[in-house]
């Protein structure tokens, strides 16, 4: 388990930066460090991507390294597979979550299976960046929480940052990984700010380690990506109710850090999983099951889930009803059978 503070404020040389800037810097550093790294996708060249994550990279590294491809997601990922077969390290940008679906056959039948199929002879060091999730007022097909599709596919790593520093560190680690990584970028956090040191961006963490964003004794909120700031906010609000909530940011859904999660739940005795993805068939079901199997005798209450509804992603004017918010999280916390302990003190020992 690693414990990290969510901000680096107070450190020398730190400056505020957005997650978008940190991602751009991660791509730039990876391109500069390793000639095998290639960035490819729709509009990633001259325009710098629709979210400007690849801003300036084509100019700096040339169009052979940062390539505007034809508009065809299966073709983009399929050709990236071939490039990886030849020893390159492609970083593919899918323009939006819902536009990655045409590439799913390549993803599931080849990207995820190539290493296994060839007994390790043909690994595919590929990073697939997918802007995902809602909360940006996007119209239909621009706000899907598609993580459940990816985590259901053995052979893929599934990573998602929630802070500026992690955006840099996790993307560097993903590109350096010899396995395919689905790098899910929470769209609504692109413009979120954090302090970091642009002279010496935070060292790359190995993929697969969760982090405790906030320590607490009453209950654990287990979350990732776009829901991390919401959970932090909920934890602050919970103080007024007498709950001291711990927040675990998973950072990686695959591999899953059972150790950090379960250590936290064993300390607090209660847990709520929070994500935007629908609850039925969503990651929360798997997480709740894992926690229950491993921490049963430490649990004071069933593991609850606060998830998006099991509906197609709503139109922008209704999305706030769908997305897990502070109130819904606190409602769930309130249902963690506190009365059995005779008070709101919380914190099992």
């Amino acid at each position: 388990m690693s414990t990290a503070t969510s901000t680096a404020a107070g450190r020398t040389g730190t400056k505020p930066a957005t997650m978008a800037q940190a991602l751009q810097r991660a791509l730039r550093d990876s391109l500069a460090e390793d000639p095998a790294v290639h960035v490819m996708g729709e509009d990633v060249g001259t325009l710098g991507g629709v979210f400007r994550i690849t801003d300036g990279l084509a100019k700096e590294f040339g169009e052979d390294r940062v390539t505007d491809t034809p508009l065809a997601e299966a073709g983009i990922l399929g050709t990236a597979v071939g490039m990886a077969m030849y020893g390159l390290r492609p970083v593919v940008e899918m323009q939006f979550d819902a536009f990655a679906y045409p590439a799913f056959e390549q993803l599931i039948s080849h990207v995820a299976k190539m290493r296994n199929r060839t007994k390790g002879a043909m690994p595919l060091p590929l990073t697939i960046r997918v802007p995902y999730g809602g909360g940006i007022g996007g119209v239909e097909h621009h706000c899907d929480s598609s993580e459940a599709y990816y985590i259901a596919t053995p052979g893929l790593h599934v990573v998602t940052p929630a802070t500026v520093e992690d955006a840099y560190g996790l993307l560097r680690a993903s590109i350096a990984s010899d396995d395919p990584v689905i790098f899910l970028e929470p769209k609504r956090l692109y413009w979120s700010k954090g302090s970091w040191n642009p002279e010496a961006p935070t060292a790359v963490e190995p993929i697969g380690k969760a982090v405790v964003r906030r320590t607490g004794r009453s209950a654990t909120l287990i979350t990732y990506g776009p829901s991390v700031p919401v959970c932090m906010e909920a934890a602050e609000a919970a103080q007024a109710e007498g709950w001291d909530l711990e927040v675990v940011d998973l950072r990686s859904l695959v591999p899953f850090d059972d150790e950090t999660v379960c250590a936290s739940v064993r300390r607090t005795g209660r847990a709520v999983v929070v994500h935007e993805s629908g609850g039925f068939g969503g990651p929360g079901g798997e997480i709740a099951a894992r926690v229950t199997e491993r921490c049963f005798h430490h649990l004071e209450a069933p593991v609850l889930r606060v998830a998006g509804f099991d509906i197609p992603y709503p139109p922008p004017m209704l999305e706030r009803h769908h997305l897990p918010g502070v109130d819904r999280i606190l409602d769930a916390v309130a249902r963690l059978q506190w009365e059995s302990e005779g008070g709101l003190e919380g914190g099992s020992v």
Partner: protein
Amino acid sequence: MVSTRTGRSTPVMEQRGTHQPTPPPAWKPRTDPAPLLPDPEPYRVLGTSRAAEADSTLLLKLYGELVRGRRYNAQATALTKQGRLAVYPSTTGQEAAEVAAAMVLQEQDWLFPSYRDTLAAVARGLDPVQALGLLRGDWHTGYDPYEHRIAPLSTPLATQLPHAVGLAHAARLKGDDVVALAMVGDGGTSEGDFHEALNFAAVWQAPVVFLVQNNGFAISVPLAKQTAAPSLAHKAVGYGMPGRLVDGNDAAAMHEVLSEAVRNARAGRGPTLVEAVTYRMDAHTNADDATRYRSDAEVETWRAHDPVALMERELTGRGLLDEQRIEAVRQDAEEFAARLRQGMNADPVLDPMDLFTHVYAEQTSQLREQAAQLRAELDAEAEAEAASGAEQER
């Protein structure tokens, strides 16, 4: 506006002067499509006046490969009956296209076979036992793709085509002299990946050759239900690459056309789509019943245009095929089949723990736990077996 001097009004157009938008330019095709168009008839060498120019040594080599390929198909089919192969999609009747595809490539080039193309892989030098690993069922890919530069046999149709494009593109970016030849069936040309691969290849001018074997059927579905295009080779034109239509049973023609396509790719002149018109003499696989969708009479008309027989006719005409030569070629094929039988008769040594070894570079804790579970189950199984063995001995 009215001129105070002349009292005449200036036309509005003139008033706007330089603000007038220029009209769109007249449309013209970006490339002259004529040189990209395939011949109206499949290109032939054998049995035509062109045959005279064909090199005898090459024809003899092709003949040897064809006979061996035919024997390979028969042997693999027999292995399904003996339960040594789970399934076998035969290329009987398609040997010319299969062996030519392998023969036109150089050592450093790459072959991207579809699930049916084990013969092409074998003709490129892959051990047939390894080539058949997928179909025996001991592992998905029975070989190291880097050893002979043969990509894993691809079962999801046409999905291997973009890989070939990406690999060829990567090689070109690195300045390496590498051509990729990718194979697909007629049915596979309806897949989106076929379209996307050809488009990417043409846009990137990647050194790729696409070989479509139009063998008449996608399992049971005939070409007429697959496309309304004049030919599959015509599809190339829409992407801005040349399409070539070839008699796929004519090994000399296949070799010539594929060689030229490979040469062009190597020289930086971009990709080519080659359609080999051929016929699947056997059912889709040993598990299929072809009588449900085609007549024996149709099969017989194609038997008259058999790739092995075509080559035999040419070589006999040249006086190159005496009894002795035929016997030598037959002998080589028999020895090859015997080696294959022998290799397939040995039960593969399987380690169930391999199921967890290659999913990721580094095993996740989840997989470590599951591997431990299977290990324990296997140990318990072995213990029980040992115990029952000891029991029986008593």
